[in-house]
């Protein structure tokens, strides 16, 4: 029954998101595309982070760095006059790959709090690099004179939104398959007991690294979309606060659940905006709300819908 409920809620949310362009068109309100586009982009990044944080137990506080890499690829290439959208996307993926491998390799030598801090350190390094890149705007960022070129679709907000939604759905589906695969089994196992994984003859490190790189790529794609949504890139996109916010989204949605990050991203951003409408001092409400949610829900928004047994799975069987 709980399963039906989850399917129902997830489908409703997805149908809602798919209906947004239709509404925008009918009501002639393009802004909803911008608004929900931002939520989708964060949801996509959160799905990426969830892969390492939720399934692999690697709490990275540096994933905003990959959002920034994806976004800056668009910014830098288009400021150099290279406009092809496919080029932007593939360069973003390749750059991220080249950077995520050594960064991940070094960071994965550590665990727990040290991992949180070393990923933060790398993100800060990149943050400062982009802050000091004067030719690309430094800390004041870079306005895109031109968005990624996709022929007639270029800059069309409907097209950006729709492709973002499609990317999100594909990623969601891939991640859902991945965690149940042989790779996923190893990944989930390392979250709880890497020693055991090694002892059965699977060297856990390559799997953790692969997951790390994969999640970095997802965040880079999210960054690619954010650049196109905003027409602007800036180092603020890769500040540690964004990484922290992503982490909050994943935790709020429910770690290690497939749909959790979407619930978390939408939840956080929508609640924030809702509260802002009600009071100027919205953090006075949001803060305690988050606290209560942790105390009351334990497994996050999505986890709330999970059956007991799945909850126990998430918490590693502890009570």
């Amino acid at each position, binding site marked *: 029954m709980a399963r039906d409920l989850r399917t129902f809620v997830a489908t409703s949310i997805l149908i809602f998101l798919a209906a947004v362009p239709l509404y925008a068109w009918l009501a002639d*309100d393009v802004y909803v595309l911008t608004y929900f586009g*931002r939520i989708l982009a964060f949801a996509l990044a959160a799905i990426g982070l969830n892969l390492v944080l939720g399934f692999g137990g690697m709490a990275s506080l540096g994933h905003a760095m990959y959002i920034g890499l994806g976004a800056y690829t668009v910014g830098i290439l288009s400021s150099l006059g290279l406009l092809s959208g496919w080029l932007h996307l593939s360069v973003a993926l390749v750059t991220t790959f080249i950077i995520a491998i050594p960064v991940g390799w070094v960071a994965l030598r550590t665990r727990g709090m040290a991992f949180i801090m070393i990923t933060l350190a790398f993100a800060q390094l990149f943050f400062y690099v982009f802050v000091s890149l004067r030719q690309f705007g*430094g800390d004041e960022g870079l306005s895109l004179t031109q968005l990624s070129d996709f022929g007639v679709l270029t800059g069309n907000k409907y097209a950006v939104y729709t492709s973002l939604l499609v990317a999100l759905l594909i990623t969601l589906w891939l991640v859902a398959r991945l965690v149940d695969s042989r790779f996923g089994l190893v990944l989930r196992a390392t979250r709880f007991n890497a020693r055991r994984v090694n002892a059965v003859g699977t060297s856990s490190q390559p799997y953790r690294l692969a997951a790390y790189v994969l999640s970095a790529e997802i965040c880079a794609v999210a960054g690619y979309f954010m650049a196109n949504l*905003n*027409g602007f890139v*800036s180092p603020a*996109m890769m500040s540690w606060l964004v990484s922290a916010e992503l982490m909050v989204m994943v935790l709020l949605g429910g770690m290690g659940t497939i749909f959790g990050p979407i619930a978390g991203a939408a939840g956080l951003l929508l609640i924030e905006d809702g509260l802002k409408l009600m009071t100027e001092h919205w953090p006075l409400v949001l803060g305690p709300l988050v606290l209560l949610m942790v105390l009351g829900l334990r497994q996050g928004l999505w986890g709330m819908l999970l059956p007991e047994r799945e909850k126990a799975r998430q918490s590693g069987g502890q009570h």
Partner: protein
Amino acid sequence: QMKVGFMATLSGPAAALGQDMYDGFMLGLEQSGGKLGGVEVEVIREDDQLKPDLAVQTVNRFIERDQVDVVAGITFSNVMMAVANPLAESGTVFVGMNAGPAPLAGERCAPNFFFVGYQNDQQAEGVGKYATDKGYNNVYLMAPNYQAGKDAVGGFKRYYKGGIAGEVYTRVNQPDYSAEIAQLQAANPDAVYVFYPGGMGINFIKQFRQAGLLGKIPLLSVSSFDGSTLPALKETALGAISGSFWGADFDNPANKKFIETFEAKYGRIPSQYAAQAYDGALLLDAALKKIGGKYQDKDALKKALREVDFGSVRGAFKFNKNGFPIHDMYVFEVAPDSKGRISHKTLQKTLPNHPDSYVGKCPL
């Protein structure tokens, strides 16, 4: 009813500036009876949280959904740069009330942009001129390592003709300056020029004073020891020099009325940020009056904004062709005011009728 979308940084550590802007703007609005040029006004207040991406989204909302007639506010340059494109493209009238980054004065100037504050470099230029006039020949320069800091140093150097004892860029939001202060002391300069907005300025001057240097070495500054930080500094900053285009002690009727009403309403001395935003309200009011409240006519409104004389609290005010002001630069000393509160005392006018340095690059 006319709609004004007001966006500023209203939360986070830098919220004090945005709040001052908002208070100043609303005060100006209130004084004309909640109307601008006789038109009923609805102000939509938004917080950009100092997040460029959120700012872009909000401005998009102003334009696409709310269909505001005027966008106003904007505290920080990086937010300004992020929203410049959508604003310029939409053609919506924009009245900037603090941030005035160089590219928007130069090559990316736009006909619908009106910066009622100042161009970022202008105040620094005034202080540079002051240092030259004083005959300093060995000044030590310090600023945080970001664009605004580099602009502040660049602006200073543009009008400063003497030698440079040292040029140091510190980390953004650095808490401790003891090492830099020791280094500075060793360089034995004629004067120190700093740009440390907000908390950084407080950290710096407290430590500068504890090292026994305040009063010994002249301390020149912009945007550091201003109305937003003086209440937290009080006598700690006595004697520091800062450059601006406006001071609370200006003796003109508009300013007197502003100071009086602001103090009565909010119980504090207004800062430059409040003054600029207040000016923004006066500007809009005057321009709309001129066109008889026909705010729907965008081109007429732009024309009126460009030409109208609105009686700025800073005295003389004129828009340049790039939408940035031509106005007088002054330097001030931190000193007690007539009521014994620590405030700014006008020392001298340094650059009269001063245009910004980028207008030449503006294609308009």
